[in-house]
């Protein structure tokens, strides 16, 4: 095994292991002398530094570990703090509208209206502080009741939920009739 190949294998081993590795273990796997491995590790360590690489070798007692250059840290923090864009997805908006109009409302009532589970959506809305727990319903299972928050009102610039646009009964009646018509058509097929 030539030096180049050995370096390649050692690089791969240190990368995969993540932890510190003793040169003796590497030597056994490669069936070479431990001193050869140490020599190779030290030369790699120096080269990584000279080349100003993003990854470095760290010597800990008699083991070696792959790590990043200390300069990377500030960029990692920047990646973490990258302004993530929170968006209200369709699911969240629908759930929010049901809570706004039906409050106080339980998760199972919301699920009944949407036809799909809403646990995740409600939790997200609570996390965004648009929705809050209002207490438990005095019913079997004592389900939690949800309602909108002050933040919710503030973001719409209204002072109470009474100010939400009214639901138009005529329109709702139309929806019902449409649904019936559709069903009739379906039956004629």
């Amino acid at each position, binding site marked *: 095994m030539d030096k180049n190949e050995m370096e390649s294998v050692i690089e791969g081993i240190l990368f995969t292991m993540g932890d510190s590795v003793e040169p003796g273990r590497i030597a056994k796997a490669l069936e070479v002398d431990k001193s050869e491995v140490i020599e190779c590790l030290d030369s790699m360590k120096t080269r990584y530094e000279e080349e100003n690489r993003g990854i470095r070798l760290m010597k800990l007692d008699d083991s070696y570990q792959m790590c990043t250059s200390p300069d990377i840290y500030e960029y990692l923090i920047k990646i*973490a703090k990258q302004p993530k864009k929170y968006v209200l997805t369709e699911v969240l908006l629908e759930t929010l509208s049901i809570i706004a109009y039906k409050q106080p409302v339980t998760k199972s009532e919301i699920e009944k209206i949407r036809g799909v589970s809403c646990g995740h959506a409600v939790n997200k809305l609570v996390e965004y502080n648009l929705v809050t727990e209002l207490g438990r319903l005095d019913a079997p299972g004592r389900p939690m009741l949800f309602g909108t928050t002050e933040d919710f009102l503030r973001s719409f610039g209204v002072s109470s939920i009474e100010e939400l646009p009214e639901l138009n009964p005529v329109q709702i009646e139309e929806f019902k009739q*449409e649904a019936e018509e559709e*069903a009739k058509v379906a039956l004629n097929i």
Partner: protein
Amino acid sequence: MDLNFKLQQFEGPLDLLLHLIDKNKMDIFDIPIVEITAQYMEYIRAMKEANLDVMSEFLVMAATLLKIKSKMLLPIEETEDEEEEDPRAELVKQLLEYKMYKCISYELRDRQVDANNVYFKVPTIPDEVSKYEQPVDLDELMSDITLSKLNAIFNSVIKRQENRVDPVRSKFGKIEKEEVSLEDKMNYMLEFARHNRNFSFRQLLEGQRSKMDTIVTFLVILEMMKAGQIFIVQENTFDDIKIESKMVA
């Protein structure tokens, strides 16, 4: 033919069919249906103890094969259509598509073997980086959502819910207790038959209020006839049914 070949070895009816076609060196575009059906059925018979879930899918194919076979045995009718479609066409199309994916799956398996020779590293992100949570900016979040939009969304949700409700079935209304009880009617009729030797079905219906009354009365008549409590005669269809009671004391 090697019947020891277990049906479970095949990934489904199409797989078995392909096996038979390959084995017999048949042309997939010109499947000798009579022969292949016979062989397919032989496999199915040999697999009687196979689990029913698997069997049912193989049986669907058997039925398809038999249908094709019968179509091909029937003389081709002279129709205005210039060309009658080969009854096998649909099956051939399905077989070819399945075969294509089967072949591709072998290729994928090889790729997986090659790709498996690569190692990755577990993430080693510092805690303060990975646990960082950005505060929610509500103004930004709600920037393009207006009250009327919220209202429109709610309306559409409700509309969807209406659509989901089966309007026909929901029209059936509540299930109410039947106004006419079979038991009451039976008791009434038994009493009536004890006091009247000869009467007719029409006579019985006089003064009955509803369709349900009529139906229940008819059911009671049938029941009493079965029990030998009455004897009935109807000379012609739609004639009145003459009833003779055997219960007169």
